């Protein structure tokens, strides 16, 4: 069968077909221009946004891991510093305790020395007072009895002693 016969058999009308082709082309252009392209642009933007989100997620994950590592490091350092501070505080406390102990010992020794000195002073003072009192009693007793027991010869001898002192 000839092609013209086939076209005629299927009722193809070239003018209608051409018009329909042109109409379809126009529809296609319009759809592409106002429907498909915005959709494609939107899809591309969405795809880029998703890719960006994924990249951000990976970056956040990595950041979290790094932060965790830093936290662990900071914790280790803080722990070490805390231990160092505790050791220093203990050493300082021991040093202060030792200083206070030495001060207390020195103060106790000073108190002991002062007490000994005060006791010695009191002893000396009492001894001196005792000597003075004994001297006073001796003098009083001697004065009370000397005048009675001295003879005229003794009186003369004393007067002669004074005369010799004047003459000397």
């Amino acid at each position, binding site marked *: 069968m000839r092609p013209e016969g086939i076209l005629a058999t299927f009722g193809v009308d070239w003018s209608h077909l051409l018009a329909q082709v042109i109409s379809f082309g126009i529809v296609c252009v319009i759809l592409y221009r106002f429907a498909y392209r915005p959709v494609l642009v939107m899809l591309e933007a969405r795809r880029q946004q998703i890719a960006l989100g994924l990249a951000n997620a990976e970056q956040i994950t990595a950041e979290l891991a790094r932060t965790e590592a830093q936290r662990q490091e900071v914790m280790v350092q803080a722990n070490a510093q805390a231990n160092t501070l505790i050791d220093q505080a203990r050493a300082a406390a021991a040093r202060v305790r030792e200083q206070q102990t030495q001060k207390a010992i020195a103060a106790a020794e000073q108190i002991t020395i002062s007490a000994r000195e005060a006791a010695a002073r009191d002893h000396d003072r009492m001894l001196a007072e005792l*000597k*003075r009192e*004994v*001297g*006073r009693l*001796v*003098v009083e007793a*001697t*004065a009370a009895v*000397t*005048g009675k027991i*001295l003879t*005229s010869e*003794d*009186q*003369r001898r*004393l*007067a*002669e*002693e*004074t*005369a010799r*002192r*004047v*003459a000397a």
Partner: protein
Amino acid sequence: MKINKRAKREAEQLFRLCLVNRGLDENRVRHVVQRVVAADRRDSPAILSHFWRLVKLDVARHTATIESVTVVPADVQAAIEAGLMRRYGPRVTTIFAYRPALIAGVRIQVGSDVYDGSVQARLTALQKSF
């Protein structure tokens, strides 16, 4: 009484006028006092006050007070007087006094010089030594 330098100087001059052979003449002292009183100067009391002080010091320098509890034997008295005259000159006059507080011994004072041989002085020295 305040005695100024001029009154002191005049009193000392008058006192020197009363000295005869380095000894104080009582008649001159009386005469000086009478003259000063008769002059009736404004500073006469000050002059006489200082003059009296000088005379008193001179008398004290030439007076020996001998204190004792008992009567000092005559020979000892003579020895003391001889010693005083040898030391202070022949113008020294002696006064004997009774002083029982001495307990025993003799105490002699001539001016500011003291020769204390009494038991009281020895006991006082003993008490001070304690």
